[in-house]
């Protein structure tokens, strides 16, 4: 049982990683991307194509897929999402939902509805024994990579010129423009970063579980739950939210194996009722 819960927490790190990209959109850019999960699945399929054509390990596909997804995100923001900004909250929701449906069906046409996974080779079965419990090396690696990406993101958005520009733009676009920030380019880069992070999450997801063109929306819901449970606007909160969600789902599978997602959703809804601001509410400075 302890092993299941620990593994749940490690899977939760992956949910945190799903959430990080969404957190950048929602928290910093104040813009939603309902196709977030479908982009994760799309990245996994690109990695699968690279693996089958060049025979490389999924981890080696990572440095190729992440830049591709950065470009996809940049173009998406520049040519589609940007046109919805400043028109209220509804257009981005509707446009990104349309994108989600299109992406799912394009993937269905290109890759069929078959369930796929990214074969991690020997890495998939390697485990270390910690006392009485055996923990897989791959889940541990996922946690380590997730923590690394979170630290990098926090550093970039907290203390670089680019991070400052994004935060300034999200606070007040007009003033940011007056200060010489090219706000549209800043948002395009942030969206690129969000999808590049999703690509990293996608590869670890593909190595641990199975995916098909219809599994995207569920990823998006997990990502959203991690963001809201952790507290919108808090980068590390998203990782904590993801881990809580992972443990909740693992606890659910202990009852009935297929019950994981349901228990996760219910814990999210209860969390929302008890702590509307999430675990780490961003302090509002006067």
């Amino acid at each position, binding site marked *: 049982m302890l092993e299941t819960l620990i593994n749940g927490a490690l899977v939760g790190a992956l949910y945190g990683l799903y959430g990080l990209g969404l957190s950048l959109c929602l928290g910093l850019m104040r813009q939603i991307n309902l196709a977030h999960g479908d982009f994760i699945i799309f990245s996994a399929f690109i990695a699968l194509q690279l693996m089958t054509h060049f025979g490389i390990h999924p981890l080696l596909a990572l440095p190729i897929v992440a830049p591709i997804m950065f470009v996809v995100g940049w173009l998406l923001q520049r040519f*589609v999402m940007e046109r919805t900004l400043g028109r209220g909250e509804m257009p981005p*929701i509707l446009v990104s939902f349309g994108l989600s*449906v*299109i992406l799912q*069906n394009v993937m269905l046409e290109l890759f069929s509805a078959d369930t796929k996974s990214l074969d991690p080779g020997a890495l998939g079965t390697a485990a270390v024994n910690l006392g009485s419990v055996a923990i897989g090396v791959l889940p541990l690696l996922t946690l380590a990579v997730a923590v690394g990406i979170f630290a990098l993101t926090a550093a970039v958005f907290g203390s670089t010129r680019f991070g400052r520009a994004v935060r300034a733009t999200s606070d007040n676009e007009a003033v940011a423009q007056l200060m010489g920030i090219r706000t549209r380019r800043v948002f395009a880069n942030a969206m690129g970063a969000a999808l590049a992070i999703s690509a990293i999450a996608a590869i670890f997801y593909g190595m641990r579980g199975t995916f098909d063109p219809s599994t995207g929306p569920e990823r998006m819901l997990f990502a959203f739950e991690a963001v809201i449970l952790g507290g919108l606007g808090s980068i590390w909160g998203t990782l904590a939210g993801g881990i809580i969600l992972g443990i909740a789902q693992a606890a659910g599978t202990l009852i009935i194996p297929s019950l994981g997602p349901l228990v996760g959703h219910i814990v999210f809804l209860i969390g929302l009722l008890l702590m509307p601001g999430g675990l780490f509410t961003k302090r509002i400075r006067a």
Partner: protein
Amino acid sequence: MIMASPLARSLAAVGILAAVLLVIPLAGSRYAILLTTEIAAVLSIALMWNLLAGFGGIVFMGFQVFIGIGGYTLFVASNGLGLPPFPFVVLSALVCAGFALLITPILFRLSGAQLAIGSWVISEVIRLIVYHTSALGGGGGMALTTVRGIDRSVRLFATYGTSALVLLVALLACIALMRGRFGLALRAMKDSPLAAEAMGVTIRKTQTYVLLVAAAIGGAAGACYYMVVLQVSPTAGFSMNWMAIILFAVILGGIGTLEGPIVGVAIYFLLRETMGNIGSLYFIILGLLAIGVMLLAPGGAWSLLKSVIRIDLLPIRRTMREAGQSA
């Protein structure tokens, strides 16, 4: 130019529709009647989602939850009591309204994009619960067994009549709500919740009312749809495809107008009936069209049409009286 009053024009338009709905079963083939039954159900659902999102600004992306609950309620009640299913659409409406009331404490913690995904999560929770409930048939769903004893043509006309009635109620509800104080409050709330509240609109109450109406009629329409299909399952009843159909129809027709969903649903069925069975390609085309409309012509097909014929079929807009005119 002499024009009838807006309300009279709206009622005339609904009256013409009612007349058409009366003629179809008399003159139409079996296929035409079945298709119209389905169109009436889908149009009622689209009208209700538009009322919620287009007029109220509550972008409820889990609307399929009411369709599924409506369908299941009808099946359970009719099968359980062994009675003909048709009157139970009223029960479906009541159960959906009750469910809507139940989720408001969670739902209205959120707003905008977060409410959109939150409502999606709620729909997933219900789908998964139904999926794991063996009394409801689990993943396989359930069949409507009480219609087996009913004569085929009686069943056809009764299903058609129920669906057509739900559509007329949906249309009249939209007109009545949007022409009155409530519609004004709703649109004020969508434009600026802060200003609306300052003018005396109680936001939470207005939001709750519009959700209740949309849930009730949406649930009744869902029940009508599954009366045609005779089989409901968690995967189909709570499918995100519902949301895709509603959204694409409403956007293509013109979100935030009464005529928009009507035009949009007409476009949707026209494309579906003429393009044949092209599966996923169909959703790709609809999605691209919807995004194009959203970015380039947010008013949709109806606003393009209106700029040509210059008339509101179901007028709900208000215009300022010119200075000097008495009220």
